[in-house]
């Protein structure tokens, strides 16, 4: 009896459980916006040479631009999530896309380094923060069985776009100088706006609670902000454990990106060989994202187990990297790097896909936002720590070993999650209001959709 009702009230353009259909259009939108956020961030290095020459500043001062941008993106993630909870994701993403492009357009007129920090760093970073988490959460809400594959396909854009953007940015800088190139990049970033426009209002996840009485009192406002930011998650052990685990991952995850080339050069390989190792690892990274996404969705194993497998393996391979290269064999270094690339790509999509298993689909948006914020600290810690170890010991072996051990430590932390060792997913969390949510989370989500359309 509930089945035809569900079908009838679904509004007519979705399957029973959201999985595919318009969801794949959103995957394409996420693909494009992720490449315009992270792919762009990764290729900004080309501008740095120009900035160093034009502003006559040190390389370190220039590198703060991208650090500010990344930090702003992660810091404003909970804000983006909260705004989506309060309003709708489409508006937030479109505004975010506008800010991202606007920041770069303003940066093209910069006359000092501080201008660049404020425009390329802060404004664009704010825009990126308003784009990434809402788009990821929206895509995840639109898939159930093939969630991880969707994420894997979308995140493969980061690697692919880095390949494409590096020569493109180089060409832009050579033709139009950095000012013109930034202007055009700002325009390209505005393409996030149509990606956001693709989010259909009735396909959002339902609002967590409807505040029946709108008061302007402080307490009520605070309570609403509290619920929009999903701060209640910070009081729950499973979420905290998970966040801690992901933070530990992040400390070690980026170390090879920073230091693999330098380490290869130090061990004695040529510049070309070292760069090729990185490119090869990047290629298997892309492969790993898509493959692990597809495999995880086949359902043979729980997502959390697969994620633990990939993170443990990635940790082991990171630790093996200096060992293989110290033996002097290029083939060994290449093999370990390929395996590392595959594992690190494989774990990326799973890290996001596991979140709704822990907090439920409804609170996913806020959970992702907070996760981004908390894990940002780890990224800031990992780079300098490994650099410090290298300065103290004289080579990169210690840095890699420590980085790998952080990943393994994170895996062990994950093992303390409740129901980790059971073979089936734990029952979904019950939120206070809806008893239905406990037994049929996806059904509940879909049931409330027509109420949204009616309201609109």
């Amino acid at each position, binding site marked *: 009896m509930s089945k035809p*009702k569900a079908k009838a009230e679904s*509004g*007519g*353009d979705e399957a029973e459980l959201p999985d595919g259909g318009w969801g794949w259009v959103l995957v394409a939108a996420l693909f494009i916006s992720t490449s315009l956020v992270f792919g762009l961030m990764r290729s900004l290095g080309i501008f740095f040479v120009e900035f160093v020459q034009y502003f006559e500043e040190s390389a370190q001062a220039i590198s703060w631009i991208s650090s500010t941008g990344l930090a702003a993106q992660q810091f404003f993630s909970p804000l983006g999530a909260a705004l989506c909870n309060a309003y709708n994701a489409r508006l937030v993403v479109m505004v975010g896309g506008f800010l991202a492009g606007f920041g770069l357009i303003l940066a093209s007129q910069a006359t000092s380094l501080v201008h660049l920090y404020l425009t390329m760093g802060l404004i664009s970073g704010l825009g990126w923060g308003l784009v990434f988490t809402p788009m990821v959460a929206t895509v995840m809400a639109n898939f159930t069985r093939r969630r991880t594959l969707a994420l894997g396909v979308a995140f493969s854009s980061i690697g692919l776009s880095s390949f494409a953007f590096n020569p493109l940015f180089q060409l832009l800088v050579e033709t*139009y*100088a950095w000012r013109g190139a930034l202007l*055009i990049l700002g325009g390209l970033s505005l393409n996030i*706006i149509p990606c956001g*426009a693709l989010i259909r209002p009735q396909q959002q996840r339902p609002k967590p609670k409807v505040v029946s009485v709108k008061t302007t009192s402080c307490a009520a406002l605070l309570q609403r902000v509290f619920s929009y930011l999903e701060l209640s998650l910070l009081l729950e052990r499973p979420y905290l454990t998970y966040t801690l685990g992901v933070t530990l991952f992040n400390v070690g995850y980026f170390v090879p990106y920073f230091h693999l080339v330098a380490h290869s050069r130090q061990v004695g390989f040529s510049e070309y060989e070292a760069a090729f190792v990185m490119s090869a690892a990047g290629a298997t990274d892309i492969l790993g994202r898509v493959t692990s996404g597809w495999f995880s969705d086949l359902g043979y194993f729980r997502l959390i187990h697969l994620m633990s497998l990939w993170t443990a393996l990635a940790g082991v391979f990171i630790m093996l990297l200096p060992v293989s290269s110290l033996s002097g064999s290029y083939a060994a270094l290449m093999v370990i790097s390929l395996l590392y690339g595959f594992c690190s790509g494989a774990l990326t999509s799973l890290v996001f896909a596991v979140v709704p298993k822990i907090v439920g689909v409804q609170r996913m948006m806020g959970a992702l936002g907070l996760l981004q914020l908390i894990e940002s600290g780890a990224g800031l810690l990992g780079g300098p720590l490994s650099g410090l170890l290298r300065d103290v010991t004289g080579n990169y072996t210690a840095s890699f070993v420590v980085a790998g051990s952080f990943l393994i430590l994170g895996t062990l932390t994950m093992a303390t999650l409740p129901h980790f060792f059971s073979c089936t997913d734990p029952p979904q969390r019950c939120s206070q209001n809806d008893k239905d949510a406990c037994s049929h989370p996806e059904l509940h989500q879909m049931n409330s959709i027509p109420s949204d359309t009616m309201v609109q």
Partner: protein
Amino acid sequence: MALSMIYSPLLLLLVSCSRRVVSKTTGPTPAPLVPTSTLPTYVKSVVLKGESHTERLELLNPVNLTLECTWAGNQNKEPNITGWWLKDGNDVPNSRVPVELQNEQYNLRGVFSVNNDTTLGNYSCVFANEARIDFLLEAPQIGDVREKPIVSYIGDSTVITCKMDDTKPMPITWNWFRDNGTEKEQIIAESSRFEIKNDERKTRLVVHDLTEEDSGLYYCGAVFAISTPMSHVKLKVITIMEPLKPFLAILVEVVVLVAAILLYEKTQSKKKATAENVPSADQNNTVTQEEPNGPEGSPSTRQRKV
């Protein structure tokens, strides 16, 4: 092209490690030549293995350069052959001399006064057209040349740099030149828009308030006592319109896409609205009333849209 074949007491700086025939004699000197300048002297000796060889010499200051060539000869080992010198492929006048076979070797020596750009170049000693050693004399070259033009905008300022490798000696100073159509004109730092910052190994030319006429080739010269080797950088000044054109194109594309997407969605929802118009009254009812509506075809209408 000053050439004097002088036998004079020399300070020997042996670089190659073969047997050397050192001649300190004051031998048969046709011309009473006295070193008129106070140039320092330098000797470079090369033994030829094979048929030809090239030797590069980096000179900073004017010198009286003595170049010695030694050749082991071929199978014939004729007792007397002719040897001469070439400068940049042209015969050096009065350089053709007979060369005796001494200790199974032929020796040829030339003394050259190298003190400016014209005297730098490619000196070659030739043994009877059979063996040849090239000496490339040059001032330290500026490496690290930027091949792509520097692009900048009207009204903006730009920085052009030149750098001398760490492995090469430091120049005395740096000069900047601009192509004036016919020749190179030196840029004077005191003039309003140009600023030159010299830093031993690096030099920076800052040009403020660029105009389109500032486009062209700029030469940086590393000044050494002997010569001023140059390297060039091309500057291209463009207007803001250049990047603005692709930017506006992208802007138009974004607006069109957004409009198309929103329009498409509106038409989709309109279709939905007209289809749902019929049972709209039913939608507000409770669920149980939907069943009797079945035979009227409205649920199937809704389902058909899927």
